[in-house]
Structures are given as C-alpha cells and as structure tokens.
C-alpha cells in the first residue's frame, strides 16, 4: 500500500497538472456562469412575458438535464452545426452555460428576498435600468447569495470531473491514467478524492470570509 502511494508520488507532476486544470476550468467557468447568471437574473424578474418565459424555460430546462448528457450534447452538437471546438472550449462552454442557469436562479431567489426601499430610492434618484441593477440591486445580491454561490462553485468543481469523458486532462482523468498505467487504483483515486476535498475546503474558507464582509457591511 505504501508502495502504491510511492508510485502516485512519482507521478505527482501529472496529478498536479490535473489539479491545476480542474482549478482553472472551475474558476473560469464559475466566473463565466456568474456573469451570465447576472445577465439572466433580470430576465427572470422581467415584466415582459416573452423575455420572462424564455429565461424561465432555459433555466428550468437546464435544471432538469443531467450535466453529463448536456456535455455530450455540446460535444457532439456543435460539430453538427459546423462549429469545431477543442476539448477545453467544449468543457468550458458546457460548464458555463449549464451553471449560468443555476446562478441565475440563485440570484433570483436572493433578489426576491431583498428589501424594496433601496431599489425604490434608486428609481426616485433617476437611475437608468442598467445602472440601477449594477449599482443598487446587484452588490447586496451577490453578498447575500454568497454562501449559495459558494455551494454552486463546489458543484462546478464536481461537474468538471464529468469532463473526463471528453478526455479533458483534469484531476479525475489524471488519476485514471495513473491507475491504468501502474494499476494502483486505490492510491490514485483516493489521492484525487482528497485533492478535491482540499479544493472545496478552500472555497468554503472563501465563502466564510465573504460572509464576514457581508456582516461588516450590514
């Protein structure tokens, strides 16, 4: 057993590059999903039926589709329309679009719970709609939704592991190749599990500090 972990240690470069890829992939798609979600949330709160129902359909649809299947569809679907993407772009696109729906729903939930007064004050001050959203509505929204957004980021990290099926060299993929090269399944995968755990602990620590920031502003 110790010997097995020795083999994993000797392959640490591969495992660490997998960890780095998982972290980069998750960070980039978390940011993209959050930005897209911020764009989508006003549509979910819109008073125009057409806009509202389109956004609602997209968000509810995504929430019912398993991510793995969505990744397959992006992977095989884009080439059908003549768009050739590499594994990285496919993975990033799939993770970002899919989680944008979840982020939008999280922001909508926090928006509904926001007090009306600052928004009405903003309207009274003559803020345009975009500035109202950007300066008055969004900042407290992001702070109060912080913990749930953090949970979603952990979900993104876990979803990124699915991208091993399209041969994206992330952490699970690295563990798989170590296991198939040296046949040390337990050592390889348990190391990957603890690396994922480490990543999630970092995010939880980040969420706690954002929570403290939000408390300080209150």
């Amino acid at each position, binding site marked *: 057993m110790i010997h097995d972990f020795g083999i994993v240690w000797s392959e640490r470069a591969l495992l660490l590059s997998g960890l780095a890829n998982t972290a980069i992939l998750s960070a980039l798609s978390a940011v993209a999903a959050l930005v897209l979600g911020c764009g989508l949330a006003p549509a979910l709160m819109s008073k125009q039926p057409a806009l509202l129902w389109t956004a609602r359909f997209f968000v*509810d*649809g995504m*929430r*019912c*589709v*398993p*991510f*793995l*299947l*969505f990744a*397959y*569809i992006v992977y*095989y*679907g884009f080439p*059908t329309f003549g768009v050739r993407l590499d594994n990285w772009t496919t993975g990033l696109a799939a993770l970002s679009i899919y989680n944008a729906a979840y982020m939008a729903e999280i922001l909508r939930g926090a928006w509904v719970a926001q007090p009306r007064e600052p928004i009405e004050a903003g309207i009274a001050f003559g803020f345009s709609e975009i500035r109202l959203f950007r300066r008055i509505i969004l900042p407290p929204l992001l702070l109060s939704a912080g913990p749930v957004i953090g949970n979603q980021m*952990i979900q993104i*990290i*876990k*979803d*990124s*592991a*699915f991208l*091993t*099926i399209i041969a994206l060299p992330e*952490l*699970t993929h690295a*563990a*798989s190749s170590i*296991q198939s090269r040296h046949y040390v*399944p*337990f050592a390889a*995968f*348990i190391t*990957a*599990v*603890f690396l*994922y*755990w480490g*990543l*999630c*602990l970092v995010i939880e620590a980040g969420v706690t500090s954002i929570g403290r920031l939000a408390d300080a502003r209150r």
Partner: protein
Amino acid sequence: MSAGDIAAFAQGAVVTVTLSFAGILIGLPIGLSLALIRWANVPVAAWIVALYVSVLRATPLVTLLLLLFFALPNIGVPVDPVSAAIIGLVMNTSAFNCEVWRSALMNFPKDQYEAAQSVGMRAGQRFRRIVLPQIVMVSLPGLVNEMSLLIKVTPVLAVVGVVDITRAAVRIGAETYEPLPPFLVAVALYVPIVFALVSLQRWIERRQMTAGAAA
C-alpha cells in the same frame, strides 16, 4: 432508430430508475443514522461522520465510482458495475441526506423533547413518536431536492459499464455514427423524471407554506 434501439432505451430507463430508487431508499435511513450520530454527539463516531460527510460532499461521483470499481477488487472484494453503482450512489447521497436531516434535528424545539421526557417516554419512544414525524416534514423538501440531484448524476454510472439510459445512447450513437439524436432522446427521458421531482418539491414547499400561514 430501430425497434432494437427503442428496446435498449426502455431497458436503460428501467435500470436508471431502479438504481436511483435503490440509492434513494438505502441512502435515506443511512443519512438519518449518520445525522443522529452527530446530533447525539457520540464520541469519536460523531467526528468520523463529520469527516465522512465533508469528504463525500466534495467528491465527484465519477471519481468515487472509479475508486470503488477498481479498488474494491484490488483489496479482495469482487464488485460488479451494478453493486459499485449502488454503493457509490448510497455513499454520495447519504452524505447530503445527513446534512438535511441534521439541520432539521438541530432546529427541533427543545421544549417538546423535554415535555416528552417529563411524561416518562423512553428515548426510543421520544424519537419515534415526537421527533421523527416532525423532522420528516421539515426535511422533506431538502430530501426531494437531493433525490433530483441523485437522478441527475446517474448518467455517470455508464462510465463503469452500467447499461443505463446514457450507456444505451452512447452505444447507439457509436453504431449509427450519429451521436446527437440518441443523446437528445436520452435527455427527453431524463427531463420528465427530474421535472416530476422538482415539481413535487415545489408543491410540498407551497403546501407547507400555506399550512404554516394558517397555523
């Protein structure tokens, strides 16, 4: 798509639904037991459960499945894809269920528990008659939410060779060289299942909200 393909999808759907049910049914009581161990603060065990939940919540199901599927035979436990799938689903979902149950237990009013104590109910009785019926109601939306999450991760089971909806879609796509249509069919099979659970969750939440408002 041929008749054989439709049969393959139907069989896959049966496998997906059966395994999901198995995972949910076994995961619920295990999650509750884990939550009780933490709630009762059993020395050492409570600490181990906390660690288990923290690690499992951070572990992608793919990684867990590959670990179980390849490592169990390595330590002398023979395991086929279906058992690996069920063990993986149960481990994954029990960690999340534990948190749902635990938050219901933490918020359980202490005075009720003490009242039950003062009328001479034994610990088992107190739990069965007083605590359990109420925490089930409180936990229900969270548990149903976890069920829909569980169904959404089941396509991963295909990775270790379980012949579910996703595996059927992959195979048909490989045979016809047209991978997109079978995946769209697969999505059309998953969406109603997940949508039913999401609607159930919303319905329960609404009902409890109106019940809470009436009380």
